[in-house]
């Protein structure tokens, strides 16, 4: 099944007939079975699905963190499939940003240093105007000199978002970004992500199993059993929940 919307020219990331198989023989697990999907530039897409549906695997493959068994993955103009370590490093530097469930900030660096880490790794200077915009949007100006331990979970995740945004990547991949947050902090982060799409044209692909979180997206792609089974444009929490319930009919779980 193929999920397609928008013109192909403005695609930020694309998976074409992606298969992912772990292990071999008896222990063989098919995490993805021929997934094809496109993620348009300047839109906020959520990937949903029950546990073990392969949604995280799909994101890892799209981001070049994991290799695909068959098929190809593209990010912008770059074909990710087949890239070596140097190529993947360059991809992560220039085209891709990450937001993790566990925030993953370096405990020894201040918030500001954490935000600028990807740029300093790549040996680039931040665009001061854009940096200001990012700091303003995440609303952390008075917290920049604090270390992660001195920040609340929501603040830490906003630092992580700023870190992903500041390099203006082609796509930001967010892996359950609100999974470790209370609902208020979660809403803040999601608002912030949506705004960065609406106001600054950022592309975001978010994996989540929370219908409320998915409702912030422009579009939701549903995975089950390693395949794309459905999608919603302009979702609301209710429509997402309904679709999920339909999918929840006991299906064989791939992983």
């Amino acid at each position, binding site marked *: 099944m193929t999920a397609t919307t928008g013109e192909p020219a403005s695609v930020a990331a694309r998976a074409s007939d992606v298969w992912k198989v772990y292990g071999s023989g008896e222990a063989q697990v098919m995490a993805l079975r021929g997934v094809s999907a496109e993620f348009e530039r300047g839109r906020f897409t959520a990937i949903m699905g029950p546990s073990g549906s392969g949604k*995280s695997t799909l994101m*890892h493959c799209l981001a070049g*963190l*994991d290799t695909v068994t068959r098929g190809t993955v593209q990010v912008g103009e770059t074909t990710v499939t087949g890239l070596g*370590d*140097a190529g993947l*490093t360059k991809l*992560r*530097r*220039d085209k891709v*940003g*990450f937001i*993790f*469930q*566990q925030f*993953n900030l*370096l*405990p*020894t*660096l201040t918030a500001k*240093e954490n935000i600028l*880490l*990807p740029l*300093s*790794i*790549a040996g680039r200077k931040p665009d001061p105007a854009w940096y200001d915009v990012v700091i303003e949007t995440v609303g952390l100006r008075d917290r920049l000199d604090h270390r992660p331990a001195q920040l609340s979970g929501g603040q830490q995740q906003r630092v992580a978002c700023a*870190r992903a945004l500041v*390099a203006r990547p082609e796509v930001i991949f967010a*892996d359950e970004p609100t999974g470790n947050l209370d609902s208020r902090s979660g809403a803040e982060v999601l608002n912030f992500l949506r705004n960065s799409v609406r106001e600054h044209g950022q592309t975001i692909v978010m994996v989540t199993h929370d219908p409320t979180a998915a409702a912030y997206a422009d579009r939701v792609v549903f995975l089950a059993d390693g395949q794309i089974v459905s999608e919603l444009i302009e979702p609301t929490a209710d429509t997402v929940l309904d679709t999920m319930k339909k999918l929840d009919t006991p299906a064989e779980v791939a992983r």
Partner: protein
Amino acid sequence: MFRATLKSLLARKVRLVLSGLAVVLGVMFVSGAFVLTDTLGRSFDSLFADAYAEVDVNVAAKPKLAVNEFEGEQLQTPFPASVVDTVRAVPGVAEATGTVVADGARLIGSNGKVVASFGPPQLGGNWVGEGDLVQLREGREPRADDEIVINKGLADAGRVAVGDRVGVLTLAPRKDFTIVGIFGYSGDRDSLGGVNEVMFTTPTAQQLMLGEPGAFNNIVVTAASGVSDESLRDAVAAAVGDDYVVKTGEQLSADAAAGLKEGLTFFNRILLGFAAVALLVGTFLILNTFSIIVAQRTRELALLRAVGASARQIIGSVVLEAIAIGLIASLFGLAAGIGIGALLAYLFSNLAGGMALAGIAVPASAVIGAFGVGLVITVLAALLPALRAARIPPIAAMQDVATPDRPLTKITIAGAVVTSVGAVLLFLGLGGHAGGNTLATILGGVLFAFIGVALLTPLISKPVVAALGAVFSGWVPGKLGRLNSGRNPRRTAITAAALMVGIALVTGITVILDSAKSSISGLVQDNVRAELVIAGAQSGPRPPSFDPAVLDQTKAIPGVRLVDGQYGDIALLGDQRTWVGAVTEPAAMRQVYGATPVAGDIDRLAAGQMMISSDAAESRGLSVGSTVPVQFARGEPQTYTVTGVYESSPILGPVIMPADAARNFSITQPIQAFIQLEPGARVADVLPRVEALLANSPEVSVADRDAFIEEQTGQLDSLLTMIQILLALAIVIAVLGIINTLALSVLERTRELGLLRAIGLRRSQTMGMITVEAVVISVFGALLGVAVGTGLGAAVVEALREEGINKLVLPWGQMGIFLGLAALIGVIAAVLPAIRAARINVLGAIAHD
């Protein structure tokens, strides 16, 4: 990136200190060695520059036989007084003074014992008056043949004063003199670098120090004004001819200092050797620390990779951390080394009778050595963990990537290969197949063996640790501790391997020295059929000697069947240097030493005849009837004929000559004698009578055979103690390693420890668990060390079989002590980590992320 690395480094100060300490200790040895040798070297320079300041040009005859710093003082060949006149007649000479100066004037102090020297010579010479350097402090110059003046340092050491009647041993047996004056040196010094000086009248000095009336062995020349030292040297050299060595005062002092510095180089190498051991152990420690750090930072490193860091940047960040630790540790090591070097130099100068020390300076070699070694070692040790860090996939930032037990196949194969290389090198080196690089080959073999065994250790650790831990299996915390130590075989292995190195070296050396001791006493007991032995303990380069008249007097004592006095020196046989013995009683060869004749006659020797061992005969292509030109330390070359060949034996030297050859030895008196009694004669009857005969030969004493063996092997015991003290440092570093590993493991297992406490493990039980883990690791390391050390020691003993080390003695008691010590080390190393583990906040630990 750079900043991220440094920040992460600073956030872990304890880790930095622990892993840095190992480097600090190693670097301290390296820089300390260089500071010490530099300071002493410059002290020698200024010492000799002072001593020869008044010498413009010095004339000496070419030595008959050149000796190096380790073989003793150079014997300077005497020449007739007419040479002094020849020199005096050279235009440009203001003054030429014939002097006598030779080693071997031993003053008997007020306690009846010879004033000992631990290195510096005991010079005897003729008094030529005061000068800028030498000034009488008390009394007057010697005028009669039984009058002497001595330096203040010697007077103090022997507790003698002006007016005392004292005995002096020289080439001749004891003679008594009256001290008429005591002199010192410019700058209020009591001695020059601990040298003792006894000054006689010129005729007495010529007789007693050179053995030739009317002869001198040195001419001190002062230049007329306006004549340069160099041109005068050339003029004098032309006048005296090729048989003489003519030097300016500057050359003389430079050459004299160079001789002593050669000795320092040797000392320097020993210190550097211990530094190498410390650094090898340190390498293991750093390798382990970095491996654990990388494992703990997996998530952090993966994150860096996810946000765009390249593999090279990750390697760079770990190496940068290593460089930072290396730099800081080298700096501290250098500072500590300067302190240690200064302290050792001070101790050395005190031992050498208060030599004036040149100011402590830090030579470039110390700085380069410190930073070079410190940095290279740290970075090298961090390289493997850095490569491992670079292989962490970025996806590890998002999920707990299970780190499966990597199979030990590769590391085991590598270990087997490296161990084999070590074994082959050892075989080549010890077997004498390595050509000129025997020492380097053996050391390389030991190094490879250590690394190889360290690589094999993870494999060995599983069963051994399980067996060791079985002791604790009845006790739950003990069982947990044992399981923890088996959890990461690599980590346990490297920690244990660090301890192994120190213990293996100590065990190996103990095996060798104990075997040597037992073999020597066995040899003497089996082969020497003498009830009494006259010998002395050697404290400096010069062996003790005694009055030859004692030999005949002993023979006249009722109950004595046979007395063999022995002399010894280095001589040139043909063109090869060799140790030559001379005996007063050739019949003792068979009757006392059990020699077996191979060819010719070994029961008698006439003048000009010698017997040689079968090995010497083979290697030099000599047989009965061969004639060989021999150059001794004194006199003209002589021709000796081989009249007998005996089976080589460890207790018999390669060449044995009749006693009359000894008059040309550098020491013309016997240095040992073996006394065989008539059957039925009692040792208790004879011994006191021989003792009485030795009253005027205080350097030696008579003892029964067992006491003689005890005395001979006693020196090995003090050598062993010294080596053990120095190697203790390597063990200290290994203990740091155990503390470090445990501390990091505790940190790593915070959550788990909290869980155990939450389900009811008491504080004391937690501490017990950590202690068991430490004890298991350290006892395992000690076991490995004892095993490897025994192997190395046994290999060396086997290689020395032909040198007479024919008994392998395993020091079981010592080994038991090492194992006990290791258990104790484990307990000590566990204290801090255990306290830390016990203090873990239960709630905080479970919530710990």
